[in-house]
Every structure is written in C-alpha cells, then in structure tokens.
C-alpha cells in the first residue's frame, strides 16, 4: 500500500492551532442548535480532513432504506426513504451508496462481514492464526482504512485515532472477530472503549485543571512518574528473554507516546471546554444495560463530536453494538413485537425479515433509529464552523453494516456517506451499484484517497482496483 506521508506539524504550530480551534462549552448541551458555530481560524491552507466510521449491526430492510432513483453514475438524491428520514437537514451533503458487494470467503457472513467491513480483507481462520485462540476466533487479515489513515498521519493530534464502542466488547462465546471491526494490522483487532465515562476522562484529561499553576504541577508529576516507569521498563527489559523483552518494549513505546501526549504536548485549549458534557457524565450508569443503550450511544457520539471539534483526533470509529447484537428496542414508542421464535431481540428478528410484516416493520424502525443517531452526528458536525466551511464538510462520516439485510447476505450492502466535501465525496447523490458487481473495497479506496492516501487497492483480498466510480 502506498501511503502519502506529510510531515506532522511542529508542536508550536499544533499548539497555536489548538488554542484557536475552539469549541464552546455549550457543545455538551443536548440540542444540536446549542453548538456554537465558530471553530478555527480562517484557513489559508487546505482544510484539515477527518474520517468517522459508524457501524450498525444485523443488516437493514433495504425496501425501506434505499432511496428511490439511484444510478451507477449517481443521480440527484430525491425524497429520503423511511429509514433515512432524519437526514433531511443535511440531505444536500449525502451520498447514499447501495449495491456494493462483499465476499464471504466461506466464513459466517456476520463474522466475515464484521472483520471485512472496513478492512476489505478476508478473515484468517484459527488454523492460519497459528496461536491458541478463543472459540470462533477468526480475525481479519489487514488493517482497517481508518487505521491506515491514522498510521499515515501519526502524531498530528493528541490521539492518532479513537475507537468508540457501545454495548459489550466481549462475550463468553463470540471471539473478537465478531465483536470489533477495527484492526491495526492483520489479526490485530482494536477493541474500542465502551464506557463513555472512561472515554471522556481519557480524551479530555487535563481540561479540568483549575489553574495554570495546577496544570504545570500535574505535568511535572506525570513526567516524573512516566520517566520512572519508562526507565524501569528499559532496565528490566535487558534482563529478560526475547519474547518477554518484546512485551516490555511494546509497553515502553506506549508509555513514551502517552508521555508525549500528556507532558510535552499537553496543550489544553482554554476555550475548548468539555465541562458541560462532563457534567452530564458525572453520574455513571451501567453502560451495558439494555435500557441505557440509547443514552450510551448518544454520550459516546457527543464525546466523539467534541473530540473532533477540539481537534484532539481526526480519525474516529463509532461502533454501535456488534454483529448478531441482541438488543431489544424498548424505546421506539411501542412494545417490541415477538418473532416466530417468540423473541424480541434485534438479531433474532433479522432472521425473520422476510417472514412477516411485524418483523419487517420492527426492523425498519430499528434502522430508522440508527439513522437518527448518525443524522444527529452529521447535523452536529454541520453546526460547527470550521474555517470557511462546516466541520461536516471537512469530515467524511461513513455509516456501514456487517451484513446487507436480514437474509444475512453480503450482496447489496447499505452505505451512507455524510459530509466530506473537502475529501471530494459526492454531495446530494444517490448511487445504486446493483448489477455492476462492484466490491466495497472500491469505496474503501475512495475513503483513503479522500484522506490523502495514494491508494489503488485496499485490503489483502482486493481483487479490483481504483476508487468507486464518481468518487475520488
């Protein structure tokens, strides 16, 4: 893979930019309108581009999801479908993409769909992984596109990338190949953080120091501890054998990188204030309880928006639940119906998608609910001014799914791209690639190109070349 690398900005440049790239405290308030649309300096150079990948499980009901009138060349986006209704305010900045295919390579479609979604790679079986692994342990054979981008722009921001998850990150039975879709490399899943409380304190650490003196003292304290720990790691490492040494060396690399982030580079913009959101997080609730799911989705999304607005990271993944998720949607305004098995859970219903209208309607409402979450994200970013454009214009938000629909196939995958004008993403377009046999790797190539990578293929199993027709 060819990656174009640009030299990261010097610390001084970064500091200046961060201080000026401010987002006001009101960001934490619940309504989108409370975002204060003033971020950043007038930009003489090219805008800073961001990438956000959003995941929803269990396929969609395509009849109610795909807007009518799409073409291979991209028709103007007309009336929005039932499941996409919430995108009305940002409709002119959307590219709806259906009809792309993924390949199963003989794996379970949920599993391959999950691992292959952003990596474009096939899964490695347990035998190929050649190490003791938990059950169902197939893992994807390559990095995901967000990580390829993050690795190419290493060191530009406080976090090279952030992985948000909602819902469980491990279960007794499903291996990590089912539970996460982000990979730093072959067979290296990056399990995200599923607690907004922990995520918030990690991302916005240092923003709460009461006085400048206190911040200086805190930096000195952290530096003394991290230097000590780093010294111990290197000293200890020399007294151990090869494999143990490798573990400590890896640990040391992380300590150095954290130290760089917190001590050398601890720039806390005085006007990028996460306090309002912080106060919403003051009372912790169980992040895994079914009833708390909508709140957790919203909190994680808000943290992501704020982190992007404060320019603490430019690469984000938001994984809402996981493949075969069994969430029960009690918050749609009616009691969840039972499927033929008597179950009310999302995945069970998805197996009945074509059996009865009850399941079909329930599933469509679930899709619409997820659509509302992504639309909230897009609209919130659109409310933040970023130079001459909005943050949404400079952020490519991509919403994907591990499988296509309840029938669990990998053909005709649903994708929606919001924003990304700066990336060269089509605006206000409706693409329908059915019949073209185009693979979703083409979209991944376009996403990478949009973020500045030189790519022709993406994924270890990419059998085609180039970006998606009509895209960069």
């Amino acid at each position, binding site marked *: 893979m060819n990656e174009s690398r640009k030299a990261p900005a010097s610390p001084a440049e970064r500091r200046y930019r961060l201080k000026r790239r401010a987002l006001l405290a009101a960001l934490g308030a619940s309504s989108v309108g409370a975002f204060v649309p003033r971020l950043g300096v007038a930009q003489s150079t090219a805008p800073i581009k961001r990438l956000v990948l959003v995941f929803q499980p269990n396929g969609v009901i395509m009849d109610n999801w795909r807007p009518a009138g799409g073409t291979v060349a991209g028709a103007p986006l007309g009336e929005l479908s039932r499941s996409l209704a919430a995108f009305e305010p940002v409709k002119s900045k959307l590219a709806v993409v259906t009809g792309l295919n993924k390949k199963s390579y003989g794996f379970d479609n949920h599993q391959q769909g999950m691992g292959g979604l952003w990596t474009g790679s096939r899964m490695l079986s347990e035998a190929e992984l050649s190490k003791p692994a938990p059950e169902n342990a197939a893992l994807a054979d390559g990095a995901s596109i967000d990580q390829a981008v993050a690795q190419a722009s290493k060191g530009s921001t406080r976090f090279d990338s952030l992985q948000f998850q909602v819902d469980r990150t491990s279960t007794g039975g499903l291996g990590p190949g089912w539970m996460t879709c982000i990979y730093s490399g072959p067979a290296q899943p990056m399990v995200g953080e599923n607690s907004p409380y922990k995520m918030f304190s990690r991302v916005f650490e240092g923003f709460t120091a009461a006085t400048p003196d206190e911040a200086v003292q805190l930096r000195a304290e952290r530096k003394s501890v991290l230097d000590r720990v780093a010294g*111990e790691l290197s000293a200890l490492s020399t007294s151990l054998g090869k494999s*143990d040494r490798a573990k400590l060396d890896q640990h040391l690399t992380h300590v150095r990188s954290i130290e760089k982030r917190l001590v050398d580079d601890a720039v806390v913009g005085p006007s990028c204030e996460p306090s309002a959101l912080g106060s919403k997080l003051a009372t912790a609730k169980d992040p895994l309880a079914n009833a708390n799911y909508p709140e957790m989705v919203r909190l994680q999304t808000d943290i992501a928006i704020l982190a992007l607005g404060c320019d603490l990271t430019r690469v984000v993944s938001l994984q809402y639940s996981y493949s075969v998720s069994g969430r029960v949607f009690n918050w749609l305004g009616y009691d969840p119906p039972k499927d033929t098995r008597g179950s009310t859970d999302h995945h069970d219903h998805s197996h009945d998608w074509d059996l009865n209208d009850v399941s079909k309607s329930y599933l469509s409402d679930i899709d619409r609910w997820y659509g509302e979450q992504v639309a909230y994200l897009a609209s919130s970013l659109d409310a933040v001014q970023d130079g001459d454009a909005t943050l949404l214009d400079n952020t490519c938000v991509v919403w994907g799914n591990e499988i296509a629909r309840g029938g669990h196939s990998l053909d005709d995958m649903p994708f929606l791209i919001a924003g990304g004008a700066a990336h060269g993403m089509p605006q206000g377009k409706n693409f329908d690639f059915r019949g073209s046999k185009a693979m979703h790797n083409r979209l991944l190539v376009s996403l990478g190109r949009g973020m500045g990578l030189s790519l022709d293929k993406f994924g270890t199993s990419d059998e085609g070349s180039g970006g998606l027709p009509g895209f960069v």
Partner: protein
Amino acid sequence: MGISSSLPRFAVGLGLALSACQGQIDGQPPTGAGGGAITGAGGTATGTSEPGVTLPASDLSSVAASCDPSAGASAEFAPMARLTRREYARSVKDLLGVDFAIANLQPDGIVGLFFANVSTPVSEAQVDEYRLAAEQIAEAATMDVAALTGCGPETGEACARSFVTSFGRRAFRRPLTTEETDGYLAIFRVGSGRGGFRGGIRLIVTGMLQSPSFLYRVEPSPRAGLGPVKLDGFELAARLSYLITASTPDAALLDAAGNGGLDSDAGLTAQAERLLASPAAASALGAFHGEWLKVSGLSEVEKDAGLFPTWNDELKRALTSETEHFVSYVLGQADGRFATLLTAPYSVIDPILAPLYGAAAPAAVGRVDFDPARRSGLLTQGAFLAVKAHDQQSSPVRRGIGLLQSVACIDMPPPPPALMVQAPKVDVTATTRERFAAHSNNPTCAACHTKIDPPGFAFESYDAIGQFRSTEAGKPIDTAVTLVNVAPDIDGSYPNTRAMLEHLATSKTAGDCYALQWFRYALKREPVMRDACTLKRALGAFQTSQGGVKDLVRALASADAFRYGVKEAEP
C-alpha cells in the same frame, strides 16, 4: 475454517472417530508431534527450553509414569505474565484497602479456559487505563495518609523513605534496590509540591502501581543459568500467592521468602497449607472453578424477561457467589474431594436463590439440601445451566460442549463455515430434545453432535435459568443418555443426570482432566514431556487423597515445574 491447533492432539490422544468432522481439521499438525506421539526432552535437565509438544489429558498418566527422579529437576520456559484484572484488583485491595472494579480494565487474554495475559502485549489504551487507575487508586488510598504510612503528624522525607521501602517491598513482591528507593524518593519530592506529604506519598503509589515490577510477574532468576534454575524465594512466593489467593503475597509469606523459609519442601508446603486455609483462598478457589466451567461471564447473560421475570442482576450475582460459597464449603467443611464438587446433593445459597431451586430459604447464605434426584454438584447449579443456555430455552449443545471441554478436556471444533447456526425455533408441541434431533438425522451435523448432544440432553431437566422441570411441551423430560466416542471409561448408558455425573466424577478421564486444568491455571501453559515428574507428583497426590483438591494444589505448588524456571531458547 479451522480449529484450534490443540484439537488434533486431543483427537489423536483420545482415539476419537471424528469421521465427517475430520474434514474440518485443516490445522497443521504440531511440530514434531509425529501423529500424536509424544516427543521432546525427557526428564533430564537441558540447557534451555526446546519447543514443547503439549500433551493430551488422556496421556498424562503415562507421561507421569516416565518420570525419572534421579535425572534432576526439570522445567520449561514460562512466559512472563501480566496480572489479570482480578489479580490486579485483589492486589490493590490487599496492598491499599481500596476497592477497584475490574470493569475499569480491558478483558484478559485466555489460556485454555483460564484468564491469563502471557502472549499479547498491552495496547496504548491499556497503558492509559493503568495510568488512570493508578491515579484514582492512589488518591483514594491516601485520603488517610497517616493510617497508610504509619507516620505521625511530624512527617518528612525520613518517613517517606520508610514507606517506599516497606510499601515497595509489598507492591513489587521483593525488596527494592537502592536505585529504586532513591528513584521513588525523587518522585515523592515532586509530588510534595502539591499537597505536601500526602501529595508525595500519593505520587509514590501512583508510580509503583504503574511499574512493570507490579504489573508483571517478573522472574529474572532463570536467566542466570544454563539449566533449570530454582526460583528465588520472592519469585516463588509470588507464584504461590497468586496461585492460591489470586493476590499479592502477604507479610508472612514475604518474610518466609526473605529468610529462606520457602527453600525446603516442608517450608513451602507449610506456607501453601497456611494460604489454602485463609479466607482469601476460599474466594480464589471459587473463582478458579468459575473459570473452569466458563461461567465467569454470567453477569452479561440476559434472558427473555417475559419467560423469566426473576432473572436480574441480583439473581446473577447470587448465582456467581453460589459457586464460590459451594466450592469453599466443599473444600473447607466437607470432604474436599473433586467428586463431591460434581455430585453433592446440596449447595450453599443466598436466600434469594431458594425459589429457583424450589428449596426452603435459608436465613442467610447457608447450606440447603436438595432431593438427590434433582441436583448433583456444580454442573446442576444455576450458573452453569444458565450460561450454557439460550435466552428462552435450554441448550443441549452448549451444555454438552461445556461438559466435554471442562470435565473431559475435549475441545470441539466450531461448526462448518457458512452453516447458519441458529437454535431450532421454539415449538410448543415438541420438547427441546425432540427439536434438536435434527442434529443426528443430518449427517453433516451428526459427525460431531452424536458426541456433543447426549451429555447435553442429560441436563434437559433444567430450563434456561436452571430451574428443575419434569415436563416440557406437556411431555415428560427424558434424561437417559448414551455417551459415545467421548472416552472409553466414560462411554456408556446412564439412566439419568445423577448417574452420569457420579460415574464421571470418579472416572480417570475426568480426574486427569481436572489435574490438567489446574496445571494450566497454575503455570499458564500446556504440559510438555519434561513435566513428567511434576505430573507424577500432582497426579500421585490427587489419587492418594482420593481426589483431594487441596492435595492436588499443594502438590503442584511444590513440584519442579512450579519451583524452577528455564530461560527462553534464543537463536
């Protein structure tokens, strides 16, 4: 599609006829395994470790028989382990009295059925978690800094130095070097800049909890020699303490480590004995059994609220505690035997579990006796039965696989690729057993499920949360089963659950498997040929005591593999 590379070895060792399932096994045969024959260094001491060939449970006894005590100690390279979440939390509690929720740390890796962090390096997010945890714990621990340090109101660097020395020795499980003491005193001075003495102590604790000497079980001794090297007292003390109490060594154990008290068999055994009798051991042994039966994920198990309205967090917590209480009771107050864990017609339960078991509620957590025809030991308790079930119905498959994996040490391959794996739909006119019959009618499924399903059907008298039932869909439940292709000493027909479990509990297969599970837990690796004398010692003690669990643990703790280390082979 593939299966874990350990399967072919088990398959060969047990002489299984996998027929159609064989086609699924495309894993490479283990290096040098020679079609299942055991190779590798014998009991002799060699320079460094050789690639070990792991052994199937069914071969443990014959390997143990090859032990040659005159050949000297033998050991195998053990990769350095990072503390598991539970070990971290328990150590923090014992060191500082601070309660720490394990959910604050990312999940652990796994060796066999057990949590262990020996292979995957930490991620940056995890290092960050350790840092945030250390800062929060240190803040809480120094609220009453006088109590923590024993220093009076007149405090200063002299007292800080004594805290560094004494707390450091406990946190690092060994005395600090002069360089370390000076280094942490320098940290104290930085921390004193904010909040004076307390700030300084707080920063010492923050630092030590992020130190590799706390987070990792470091054992440098084996690097010093060519052959097996006896671990030093402190390294051994840490192994012993994390094995038996899942926590950091206490003061008495550290003292013994420092004065040579662990050098002799007698001294080591006495400490093991002392720890096994401690309250800390009771919950750690309970936790071992939770991992062994893979019920540690119980808190995340959800059930259909309409069918099982009583299923809630409180009930789940009570079921998790039941495992601990029951194991602790059997090992402490009853006969302490493995067989009893699998057959006891009683349990030790919280009153809120009484309805689930159809028992009279005890006044507080206490023993309740069941109808022996209805309950027998751990596999008939709610934790195992509910984890190994679906949200609306039982799962003969999960229960069968669970029994094979945990009790008989047989791993089953995952189903073939592209097979839509879904439990059969609930049908009010048929029993679960009838609905799962499709498995044996379909040749693709039957290859594996003729082995999996029968032991699972034996638990059909328990519903999805473990409540006893004698009918389903208006028909009587049938728990008579015939086990085939599991192991020669287990195969056969059993009229009901209890009959099957009673036979299993005293079988050689289950006994050897249980010993193997403890070996994995204790050493975080698979046994190899050169573990012959360790296995002989462990199996011998287990057999002599007629399946005494503590006898097994004590024997393991005093065996070569536990007391010696070998450095890693390097090119």
